[in-house]
C-alpha cells in the first residue's frame, strides 16, 4: 500500500497528463567528465594514464600511474546510480539516502564525527568521503569489503544506517513504476523485475564516477612548477620526508597505499577501543588497525579519524608527532605500525603540512544532485 502510494505520487508530480508509458525521469547517455565513451562504456582518462607504476601497484611518486580502477560502466548505469544514491526510498523509513551521510556538498561526508542513520541511530564510525573510491581494493574503515557492490550492502542493510533488507529493498523499487522503467533502460534484464544486484551495480557505477584528480597538487605533479606556493612546497617535502613519513602510507598518486595500519589514534572520550581490522581478521596484532584513508579532498572532510576524533587537520597532523603510542588506552598492547615514531616536527612544520594538504582539493567534477528522485520523496541534504 505504501509503495503504491509513493509510485502514484511520482507520476502525479513528475508527469501530469503524460501517457502511462512515459518516464518522468530519463537516464543520461553521456559519460561523466574524466571518462571517455568507448563502445558504449565509460573508460577513465586522466593525466596519470600516461604513467606506469612499479608492479602496477599504483603507488609511488609524482608521475606514477594510479592503482587499477573500476570502470567500464555504461552512462545509464552511472546515472541510475545517481538517482538511487540520492533517493531515501532505499532506507527503511524513507528518510535516509546514501547522500545523507555522503553529501556531495560536504565532499561526500556529513561533517559529523560519527554518522546518524535511520531513526536517529548512531553509527560508530566516521563517514568516509567517496571521492576516488573506484580505485580502492578494500572498503570500510576496517577493510572488510572487497568490492563496491559488497560495500553498498553494509549501509543499506545495517540496522543503524539505512536499515532496510534485501527483500524490502527490491519490493520497494519494483513498486515504483519510474524505477521499473529506469532499471530497464540501464539493465535490459530488469524488465521482469529489479534485482538486488542491479541496485548494487548501479550504485557502484555512480560511486566509481566520482573522480578527483585535478588538484593543484596534480598540476605540480604533471610538471607545472609554480602550481604550489613556497609554503605548500615546503609542506610537500615534509609530507614525503622520512621524518614525517606521511607519504609512506598516504602514498601518491591516490594518497593511500590501501593497507591496514595500527597507529593508535585516540577514541572519542568515553568510548572503548575500536578493534577495527583486528575484529575482522581475528588477528590480535591488527587490533586497532584501520585502512589508510586517501587524502584527496581531505581539507573538506573534517572531522578526522575513524570516529571523527580530530576537529581540524592541524590537530590531526599533530597526533603523529605526539609520541609513539601516546594515545593508546591503558591496558592495551597495540602493535603500533613502524612508521609511527618520534618525528619531533616543529609547529611550523605542522602548519606547512596543513598547507600542503590543502593542495589536494579538487571538486571540479562534482555531480549534480537530482532535483527530484523517482520515488518522489524529498531529497535529503
Amino acid at each position: 500500500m505504501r509503495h503504491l502510494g509513493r509510485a502514484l505520487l511520482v507520476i502525479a508530480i513528475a508527469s501530469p497528463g503524460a501517457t502511462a508509458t512515459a518516464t518522468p525521469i530519463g537516464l543520461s547517455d553521456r559519460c561523466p567528465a574524466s571518462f571517455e565513451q568507448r563502445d558504449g562504456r565509460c573508460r577513465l582518462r586522466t593525466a596519470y594514464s600516461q604513467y606506469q607504476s612499479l608492479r602496477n601497484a599504483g603507488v609511488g611518486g609524482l608521475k606514477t600511474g594510479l592503482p587499477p580502477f573500476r570502470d567500464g560502466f555504461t552512462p545509464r548505469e552511472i546515472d541510475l546510480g545517481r538517482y538511487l544514491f540520492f533517493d531515501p526510498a532505499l532506507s527503511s523509513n524513507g528518510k535516509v539516502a546514501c547522500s545523507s551521510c555522503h553529501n556531495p556538498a560536504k565532499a561526500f561526508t556529513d561533517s559529523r564525527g560519527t554518522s546518524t542513520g535511520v531513526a536517529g541511530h548512531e553509527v560508530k564510525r566516521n563517514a568516509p568521503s567517496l571521492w576516488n573510491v573506484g580505485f580502492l581494493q578494500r572498503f570500510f574503515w576496517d577493510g572488510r569489503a572487497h568490492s563496491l557492490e559488497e560495500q553498498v550492502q553494509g549501509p543499506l542493510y545495517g540496522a543503524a544506517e539505512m536499515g532496510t533488507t534485501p527483500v524490502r529493498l527490491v519490493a520497494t523499487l519494483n513498486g515504483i513504476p519510474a524505477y521499473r522503467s529506469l532499471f530497464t533502460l540501464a539493465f535490459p534484464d530488469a524488465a521482469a523485475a529489479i534485482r538486488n544486484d542491479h541496485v548494487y551495480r548501479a550504485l557502484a557505477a555512480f560511486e566509481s564516477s566520482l573522480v578527483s584528480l585535478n588538484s593543484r597538487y596534480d598540476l605540480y605533479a604533471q610538471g607545472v612548477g609554480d602550481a604550489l606556493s613556497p609554503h605548500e612546497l615546503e609542506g610537500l617535502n615534509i609530507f614525503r620526508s622520512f621524518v614525517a613519513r606521511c607519504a609512506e602510507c598516504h602514498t601518491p598518486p591516490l594518497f593511500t597505499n590501501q593497507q591496514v595500519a595500527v597507529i593508535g589514534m585516540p577514541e572519542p572520550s568515553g568510548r572503548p577501543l575500536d578493534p577495527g581490522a583486528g575484529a575482522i581478521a581475528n588477528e590480535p596484532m591488527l587490533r586497532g588497525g584501520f585502512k589508510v584513508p586517501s587524502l584527496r579532498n581531505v581539507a573538506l572532510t573534517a572531522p578526522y579519524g575513524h570516529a571523527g576524533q580530530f576537529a581540524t587537520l592541524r590537530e590531526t597532523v599533530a597526533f603523529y608527532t605526539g609520541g609513539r603510542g601516546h594515545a593508546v588506552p591503558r591496558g592495551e598492547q597495540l602493535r603500533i605500525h613502524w612508521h609511527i615514531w618520534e618525528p619531533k616536527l616543529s609547529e611550523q612544520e605542522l602548519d606547512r603540512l596543513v598547507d600542503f594538504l590543502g593542495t589536494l582539493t579538487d571538486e571540479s567534477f562534482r555531480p549534480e544532485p537530482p532535483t527530484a528522485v523517482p520515488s518522489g520523496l524529498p531529497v535529503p541534504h
Partner: protein
Amino acid sequence: MNKKAIVSLVVVAVLAAAAGYLYARRSVVAAPQVAAQSTSAGLAAARGAGAGGSTASLETGRPAGKIITVKAGEAIQSAVAAAQPGDTVQVLPGTYHETVYIDKDDIALVGVIHGADWPTLDGERKRNDAVLYSGNGIRVENLKIVNFKGNAIMGQAGNNFIIRHNWIANAGVYGIFPEFAQNGLIEHNILTGIEDAAIYVGMSDNIHVAHNEVYGNVAGIEVENSRHVIVEHNLAYDNAGGILTFITPGLPIKTTFDVIIRDNFVVANNHKNFGAPGSIVSGVPSGTGVIVMAADDVIIENNVIRDNKNAGIIVADHKSFANITPDPEADPNPDRVSVLWNLFANNGYEPITEIKALMVAALTREGPDLVAVGGGTGNCVLDKGALKTLGLGSWASGCAKTSTADIATYLLDKPAPPRVLKAEDRGKLIYSSVCAGCHAYNVRMIGPPTQVIQAMYAGNPQGIADYIANPTKKREDFPPMPPQGHLSADLRLAVATYMLGVSQPKPPAAAN
C-alpha cells in the same frame, strides 16, 4: 624444533670485548670444496668488467645538457629550479644547509671534490632529508651528507638512477633509499652512523648495489619487498646486522625474489642495535651477518662472513620475527634460498638466547654459520656438512644452481621507458580529464558545447590554444573560463586539435 621467536627485541648483552672472544674461540673455517671455490673464482673474474671496476653499468638515456655551477653561499635548489632535463648541477666545495628536491627528469647533481674539501650538505640535526627526487634519470654523485633527521638521499618512483661516490654520515633513518624505483645503480658510497639501514632498497626492481662501504649502522644493506637485486662487492662491518633481505608485511608491494648477495665482506657486525623503538630493524639481533626474512629465490654466494657474534646467516619466516605484524597477502616463508660457497669463520660465538636454545636442542656448543627458523621450502646449502648449521632439517644439501656467474647484473639493457606520451595522446587525456568537466559535445554544461566551439574555430586549433592560455569572458550567460596557461604551447595546441576532432559519442548498444 623450537620455532619460537628467534629474533626478538631481547637485547643481547653489550659486546664487552670482541677481541677476547676472538682469542678464546678457535677459528672455524668451513672447509670449502676446492672445485667449487676455483670455479666460483674463475667465473667471478670472467664477469668482472676489469680490475677494480664495477661489474655493472647503467644506461640512463639521459640527454646531454649544460652545467650549472653552485658555489658555497648559493642555494643548490635554485640551480635545480633553473635546470632542464639533461643539465648537470655542479656543486663546489663548501657547506650547504638545505633540502634539495628534484621533481624533473634527467638531472645530475654532482659535487666537485678538491683534495679534502667536499661539497657538504649539513642537516644540523634539524633538517629532514638532504636530497629528495621523483624524476627519472637522476644522478647524485660526490656529495658529503651529514646530520639529517631523516634520509640522506631518497628517491620516490625515480627510475634509471645512479647514486655513487657519496660519503654519508649520521642520518636519522636511511642513508640511501630508492623507493618504487626501477633500474638503479648504487655504488662506491661510504655510509656510517645511520640509525636504520645505510642502504635500503625498498619496493624496487632491477637494482645493483656494489662496492659500498657500510659500517657503524644499525643495518648495513637492506633489500626489502624488491625483486631482481644484486648486492655484490660491498664491505659491511660493525653494523648490528650486515646485509638483510626481507619481505616486510603491510606494504603495498608484497614480494621479494631474485636477490643475489655475493662477493661481499660481511665482517664483525656486532654493533649495538641503536634502531628507533618500533622500527623493523630494531628487532635485528646485534651480531648477525646476513638475514633473509620471507624473501624467495635468494642466492648467497662467495661472501666472506666472519666474526659475527650471533650468527653468520639467519633465514627466518615472519612468525619467527617477534615484532612483525602478519599480512595475509604476503607469503611469510623464505622459499628457494640457496647458500652456495662462502667463507665462514668465527660466527655465532655469542648467540642470542633463542639461538642458544636451538644449540641445546641440537646438542651442540658451536654457534651457527647458518641457522634457519620457521617455514620455507626448496631451500638448499651447497654442502651442509661443511658448515655449522641449526634448523636445516628440511634443507637440501646440494643446490641445482651452483653459481650465479651467468648473471652479471639485473639492471635493464635499456632504461625504463620515459614518462611522456606523444602530444596527441596527451591532448586527448587533457580533453577528457580537464576540458570535459565543463564542455560536453552537444549539451550545455558549465561552458558552451564542444560542437559550438568546433563551429567557431573550424580549422583553427591555434586560435583555441591561444585563447585558453588567457581566456577573456566572451558570453554573458557563461562564467569565465579558468586560464590554462600552465599548459605548454604544444600541449594547448594538442588539446585544441583534439577538441576540434571530437565527435558525438556513440550511444550504448541497443537493449537486447
